């Protein structure tokens, strides 16, 4: 997980700056965060607390983003825009995404 921190940080900033995005919610599950805290405690590491979750299994990078959008634009359009921004970023990094999940959790 620590090796994904810079990507997660970059992606969090990227998503926050995407027009139409009002807020970036934590995309990690509660159980996942609790497990992270346990591992942090045991290993003494500092965990990734970015709301954008990045995982790198062998099948390719997986990104999970939860957002709230403003009411000014179509939520679907903003969702696609966020996906495309994330995909473009990963491509720039020479990374291939196996899955980019973007979920709109609030509108307005």
């Amino acid at each position, binding site marked *: 997980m620590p090796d994904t921190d810079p990507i997660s940080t970059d992606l969090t900033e990227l998503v926050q700056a995407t027009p139409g995005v009002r*807020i970036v*919610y*934590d995309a990690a599950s509660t159980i996942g965060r609790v497990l992270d805290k346990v591992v942090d405690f045991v290993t003494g590491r500092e965990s990734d607390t970015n*709301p954008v979750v990045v995982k790198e299994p062998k099948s390719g990078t997986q990104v999970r983003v*939860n957002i*709230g959008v403003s*009411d000014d634009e*179509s*939520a*679907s359009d903003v*969702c*696609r825009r966020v*996906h495309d921004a994330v*995909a473009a970023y990963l491509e720039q990094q020479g990374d291939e*995404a*196996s*899955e*980019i*999940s*973007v*979920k*709109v*959790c*609030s*509108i*307005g």
Partner: protein
Amino acid sequence: MSNHSAEPADFSGDEPEGLDGHTIEELNDYLDRDRTPTDASIDNSPGCQIALGTLERLRGLTRTLLDRDALAEPERDDSWVSSILAGLTREVHAGRDIPITHGSPNARLSVTEGAVRGMIRAAGDSVGGIVTGRCRLEGDVTELGEPINVLVEANAFWVDRLADAEEDVRRAVRAELERHTDLNIEAIDVTIEDATASLASTE
């Protein structure tokens, strides 16, 4: 495009996790304090944000009612407020994921049912004199193209004709659903109760 697994809608009971451990009373207090000091657990909770939006609109209407002395009526029936607040906790939970189309096979795009219900309430409330209550999406919203029926319950104030108000709400809700989602809306059923009927009869 993703194939999301179908999950049945559950409106059977309260789901406090929709407010991430907070209560409607706490959110009301937060608004009373003008959201200061900021509370990250509220600000970062989608359910709390949706509920705060509804509470703010409700407060706006209540102020207007007070201005009109409607709430000063001794025989007022404000059960509609209790009903909306009781349902709010249940309806802000995320619920099912509603897919959003995208050309990439690796894209998993969606909007939560809770976000859509919040948007529907805001659309209904945009019609003058209307406070939207319960909203339901009937049908398998997790599958693209499936026909969906939308049920909306609302309360009306200062509305000349309920039938006109119902049509206005229906039109506003449809426009917002078409703007924000890829849902295949088959029908929108709007039921409006005249919240001022008892008051009007005493005038």
